[in-house]
């Protein structure tokens, strides 16, 4: 598991390659979030942010077959089209990789302490949390199934 909260940009190809070395891995699902429309500054809570992401990844690993996982989230000043967040999950099969990747992203949006401040022409404003993000995270509560233990 690699978790990094950093100001620097990241390279999707390099990160995917880094978690693909094991020959039991048959699927890597990845997600990259980009800055839309306006420049922004991202604030975080050093320490708690990393721990919150780690807990989310551990939760995903308890629900799905996850062999490797990398989460990178940037902070500081970002411009439109900049990369903000990367989630990459390696598994034996695609269903687990897809599901764990989406779960981690949905939970990260509502649980990890980051705050966006947009710099609009009319002035800077803190972005409000959206109910739709809470609903996206909540949806997983009913979808998660107990996994069968394998011998």
């Amino acid at each position, binding site marked *: 598991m690699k978790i990094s909260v950093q100001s620097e940009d990241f390279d999707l190809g390099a990160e995917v390659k880094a978690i693909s070395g094991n020959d039991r891995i048959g699927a890597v699902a990845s997600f990259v979030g980009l800055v839309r429309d306006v420049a922004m500054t991202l604030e975080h*809570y050093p320490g*708690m942010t990393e*721990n919150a992401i780690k807990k989310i990844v551990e939760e995903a690993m308890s629900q799905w077959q996850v062999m490797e996982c990398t989460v990178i*989230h940037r902070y500081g000043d970002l411009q439109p089209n900049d990369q903000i*967040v990367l989630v990459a999950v390696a598994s034996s099969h695609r269903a687990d990789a897809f599901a764990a990747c989406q779960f981690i992203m949905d939970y990260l*949006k*509502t649980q990890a*302490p980051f705050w966006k401040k947009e710099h609009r022409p009319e002035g800077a404003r803190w972005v409000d949390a959206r109910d739709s993000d809470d609903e996206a995270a909540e949806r997983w509560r009913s979808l998660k199934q107990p996994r069968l233990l394998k011998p």
Partner: protein
Amino acid sequence: MKVKVLFFARLREELGTSVEVIDLPDSASTVNGLRSLLMRRGGAWQRLLAEGKNLKIAVNQDLASAAAPLNPGDEVAFFPPVTGG
């Protein structure tokens, strides 16, 4: 007892501080006790620390409720709902 109090994002900006050490009386050793003490400063303190969906609380870097007990040296953070990703 002393606790370290952190403020983030809109709270940090509007309160004009990011970190403070507060000496709490023994009778106020919960997040709510700390909140009431700070809210007595009035103005933005009273408005921003009012309980509701716009105020999130963490104790020692774990999300906590306003009723959570506090111990000497604890780190308490107040912040708005998160908007990362």
